[in-house]
């Protein structure tokens, strides 16, 4: 069973059966209640997932992970100054808005539609907010102390480079997504954070995050933070590790500690 990103409120799972039988996709679809954005296209969850990648790459630094960093605009809630339909949104993204900070985007229309799909999916989910009562300073202590997070993660110049870098996590991930990673890291392991284990013909074992591969070679950063490249013909074993190496913190931290940690992570906006 392959699970895709679990946005709060919906999940997609594919039950792929073997050989000649067809897999079926079970999708829970949310009814969009926001009246500010009229539905003109039907999207599937895979569109939102692909769109989130494009949103992070192209939009997030101005609009923020929730889409509400520009006054008067809340992309995540379907609130726009100049758009009321999908077509309006596509035009704005493609052509920009002259005289404003919104530039034209060099993207194909199909890619722009994926961003629209992502925005719709966000608008269909509850508002992602920090739980009350947290404090970023306390959260930093949790991260550096009891949480042991820097054993795998890096923030600016501190910590390990093997796991995902968290220096701008508050900018690139919604709060609900950060929270999910803390509670259930196996729910979504993005392909660029996959761990592989390999064993060379000489018997040496290396585990690390994959950086790239082709038919003949594989590149990784290992648990000792070394950039390594191997010839596949020199290996006797190469497997992807299915489970995330990150443990769940549901029981390792108290509720308050998790809240503080969330506040701290949400404050990390990069250099």
């Amino acid at each position, binding site marked *: 069973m392959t699970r895709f990103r679990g946005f709060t409120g919906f999940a997609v799972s594919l039950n792929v059966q073997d050989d000649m039988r067809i897999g079926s996709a079970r999708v829970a679809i949310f009814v969009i209640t926001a009246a500010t954005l009229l539905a003109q296209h039907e999207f599937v969850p895979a569109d939102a997932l692909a769109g989130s990648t494009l949103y992070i790459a192209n939009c997030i630094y101005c609009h923020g992970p929730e889409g509400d960093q520009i006054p008067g605009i809340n992309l995540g809630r379907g609130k726009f100054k100049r758009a009321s339909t999908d077509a309006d949104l596509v035009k704005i993204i493609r052509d920009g808005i002259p005289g404003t900070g919104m530039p034209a985007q060099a993207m194909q229309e199909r890619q722009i539609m994926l961003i629209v799909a992502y925005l719709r999916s966000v608008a269909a989910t509850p508002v992602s907010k920090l739980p009350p009562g947290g404090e970023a300073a306390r959260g930093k202590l949790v991260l550096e102390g009891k949480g042991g997070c820097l054993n795998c993660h890096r923030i600016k110049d501190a910590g390990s480079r093997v796991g995902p870098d968290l220096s701008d996590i508050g900018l690139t991930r919604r709060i609900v997504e950060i929270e999910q990673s803390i509670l259930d890291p196996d729910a979504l392991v993005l392909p660029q954070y996959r761990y*592989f284990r390999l064993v060379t013909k000489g018997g040496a074992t290396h585990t690390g995050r994959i950086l790239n591969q082709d038919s*003949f070679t594989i590149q990784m950063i290992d648990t000792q933070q070394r950039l390594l490249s191997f010839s596949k013909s020199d290996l006797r074993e190469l497997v992807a590790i299915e489970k995330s190496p990150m443990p769940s913190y549901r029981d390792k931290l108290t509720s308050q500690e998790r809240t503080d940690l969330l506040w701290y992570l949400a404050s990390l906006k990069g250099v």
Partner: protein
Amino acid sequence: MLTLAGASLLPAQTSQAPVSFDRIIGAQKEPQNWLTYSGGTMSQRHSPLTQITPDNVKNLDLQWVFQAKSLERYEVTPLVVDGVMYSIQNPDDVVALDAVTGRVFWMYSYTPSKEARPCCGRLSRGLAILGETLFLGTIDARLVALDTKNGKPLWNVSVGKPEEGYAITHAPLVVKDKVIVGMAGGEYGIRGYIAAFEVKTGKEAWRFYTIPGKGEPGNETWKGDSWMHGGASIWVTGSYDPELNLTYWGVGNPGPDWNGDNRLGDNLYSDSVVALDADTGKLKWYYQFSPHDEFDYDSTQIPVLVDMPWQGKDGQTRPRKVMLWANRNGLFYVIDRSTGEFLLGKPFAKVTWMNGFDEKGRPMKVASAASSKTGTLIFPGNQGATNWYNPSYSPHTGLFYIPTWDDYSSLFVKQDAEYIQGQTFSGGGPRNTAPPIVTAGFNYRKEGEMYGSVRAIDPKTGEMKWDFKMADVTDAGILTTASDVLFSGGREGYFFALDARNGNLLWKSSVGGRVTSGPMTYSVAGKQYVVVCAGNSLFTFALRQ
């Protein structure tokens, strides 16, 4: 031999007789040349040249590179005639090069109309030649004849309306005194056709519509008026059997691509091979690979014609004229090319949309295999288990080699579609089910998540004999030679040679960009060269001296 300050005339320029049609159908007799897109009208993409062998291929060296100005995918297979290479610079420039050094003799620059709107690349896959004339199909649906000596246009005719989505992206096919082209534009609601033009004047000689008109046999396979914008495009070069005088063409998908609700019926002749009388364009037979297709399974593959022993229903083995076809839908077929009789059908990759054939060779579709609003998971995915990039048949090994995508699926999503002239008319689209290669080219895939391969199968049985797996999928064609060397490439930027008998890797070169063409080979003055396009460049290799 001319001399100039000690320089001598390069061997390339010693003989350049006009290319007769007899030379084209006898192309195997002059293996130093490459006279058609597929190397011959039987389209086996197999060369009799033997200078490069499994033992010495590791000594291949780069000879020269032609870097095109366009960054569009480079899908051309050039022609070589007596030391002169004729190639394309995307979208539709034609260039004549010295095949030994890569220096340019002349270049013809073509500016397509602003109305040109090819769906999937502003490019051309190549040229045809006859006499001292080259033929070029353009992305604004024109057919142009050029002089081989100086690149001057001889005539230039309109074949279709680019504002309606019509385009020509494949290399034309010359048959006797006619040049044949087909119309791309299946994503724009065209009504596809194949047309033949007199080589001397460009006058249209015949036209075959790939969708029958009102009252014609097969029109009833389209509900209502859906036939008028049913697609069924042509964008890969066909083949020709001189003994049967039949020309064979693979036809593209019906439109709208992913929503068949308003075009109920089999949708002939979409996703079919059609066999046409080469003189008149009349249909002799057809076989439809994917009736009422909703998965974009264009049958725009090269028809590979082979004469081989075949066991009949009486158990007797006799020589038979067959056609080998690895289809985008994941199935390998053997078809009698005289009659269209279905002889064999077998999956060559993972297939879930059908689970067998009836006694006439009609695929038995799984009832739930249909595009849907929420997405239906189907193997193979939208790009298919193979596609336009050419396979190869080696009469030496008796094997058929297929550029394959496997473990590859798509979620097929159906949406409403309204035909508007000049706009895409596709009715939804596929969604990825595995990590695509992101822009920077990083591959994070694991086992079971789509891969490419060069797959060798026994055409008598459809059984796989060997498989050369790659970590990424491939858009490269395959070339085989009589010395049992197989050349191909992939998206990772490797151009490689395998032993055609067993798939062992013999040599590879990193050419840096995606290999998106079918390799070809030629020789000049006894030296064999191998050519492939990758990125935006054409690379030529030969053995180290």
